[in-house]
């Protein structure tokens, strides 16, 4: 049995989108180092409920790093200090007895706080609706080998398709830019033959939507790549720029 820890938290509490927010101090005793970070918050919430306080609201679903629901700023780092992990994959063994941890929601004008640590990520959905799809006739699925695709294109497209839309890239970006998210979606489809027919309209519409949602400009800090739970490379952003320039100046 590992030694139990006492963890101090400074958590952002905000009752609603329009309410004034503030930091609240909590202490969670008896934290097992094998707990995930979210399980530690579950324990906090049980304690809060028992004492009659509202539990801290946070997004979560699969708790195995593939759904993209969870995501909080932990001591100023999106998804915490470890590389290629979502918040649900962070464990309390990364902390020591008596540590104080600051927990904040993603901060961006485009991601307004709904309550406590929950933000509205609908702008990502609208960027997707603008062009992050392939228009096909929905009939019987074609044979998987009917369209040959080079292996390296498949691999690269798959790397970009790994984006789970968690929003850490925006949260960690000093400019609150959504370029890595949009770049990953654009690049994923641009690398595949299925995505090619609509590539120009797609990149133009998605880049336009990204700006309209109020995300900032990219300044190539590359912080997004470092915090991305899927390790998506900023090469996605370079590919998006190339797609955009081709759409603007290439042969129509």
């Amino acid at each position, binding site marked *: 049995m590992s030694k139990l820890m006492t963890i101090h938290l400074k958590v952002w509490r905000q009752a609603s989108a329009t309410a004034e927010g503030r930091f609240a101090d909590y202490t969670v005793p008896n934290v097992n180092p094998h707990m995930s970070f979210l399980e530690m918050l579950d324990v906090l919430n049980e304690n809060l409920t028992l004492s009659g306080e509202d539990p801290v609201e946070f997004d979560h679903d699969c708790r195995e790093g593939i759904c993209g629901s969870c995501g909080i700023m932990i001591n100023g780092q999106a998804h915490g200090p470890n590389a290629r992990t979502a918040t649900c994959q962070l464990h309390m063994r990364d902390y020591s007895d008596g540590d104080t941890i600051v927990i904040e929601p993603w901060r961006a004008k*485009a991601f307004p706080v709904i309550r406590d640590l929950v933000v509205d990520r609908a702008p990502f959905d609208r960027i997707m609706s603008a062009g992050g799809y392939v228009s096909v006739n929905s009939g019987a699925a074609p044979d998987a080998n009917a369209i040959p695709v080079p292996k390296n294109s498949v691999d690269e497209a798959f790397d970009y398709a790994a984006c789970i839309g968690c929003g850490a890239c925006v949260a960690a970006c*000093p400019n609150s830019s959504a370029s890595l998210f949009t770049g990953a979606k654009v690049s994923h489809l641009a690398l595949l033959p299925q995505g090619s027919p*609509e590539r120009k309209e797609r990149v133009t519409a998605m*880049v336009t939507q990204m700006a309209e949602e109020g995300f900032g*400009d990219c300044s190539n800090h*590359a912080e997004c790549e470092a915090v991305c739970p899927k390790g998506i490379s900023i*090469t996605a952003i370079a590919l998006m720029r190339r797609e955009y320039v081709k759409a603007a100046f290439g042969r129509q």
Partner: protein
Amino acid sequence: MADKRVDLKSFSGSQVGKKILTGITGLGLTLFVLMHMVGNLSFFSPDEQAYNAYAHKLMSLGPLLWAVEIGLLAFVLVHIVLGVRIYLGKRAARPVDYQTYRTVGGASKQSVASRTMIWTGVILGVFLVFHILSFKYGPGVDDGYVTTLNGEEVRDLRRLMVEKFQEPLYAFGYPIVMLLLGFHLRHGIWSALQSLGAVKPAWSPVIYSVAAVIGALIAIGFLVLPLWIFFGGGA
């Protein structure tokens, strides 16, 4: 999908266009400061008149010089306007800031240089005006700064420089600004090349290192001269 064609106006206002134009103008200005630095180093030539000869040669280019100057001015203005717009956009994109924020390191290229681009840029812009007034529009032939070059009377820019850099404000102010230029270029060259299409993941670390080397070389190439003169060289 809606068929939205991109014209030049919407391109330059788009997030992609702003980055590409900032990159192109930035690289153009980098090329200029690199040439300016190499020109300055002619001061160290054993030929005492090498620097004045270089300056005179530039001034006698006539219309070609004006064309380059107008081009440089346009690049500077576009670069400033876009830089300020990107900065204001960034401020607007995060109205409530984090109480605690830190980089996670790893693949991140975030640094003091990358986070201070707007401020190093503003200082360089102010410096540029001051610098042009001090030297380009500083005392010339009519004020007695004359030397003879191949039998021709030309401006003695070398003397002006030696005099200016004997004043502590110039001798130490210039190197400080040149260090800031080095920081600006450290992130700027990397960012420009990344914006202009590092479409293979393996290229990014190479570009990042090259940017650091060029930034450092340009800063050092500029700042040795004022210090050299202040501490007695070239007198």
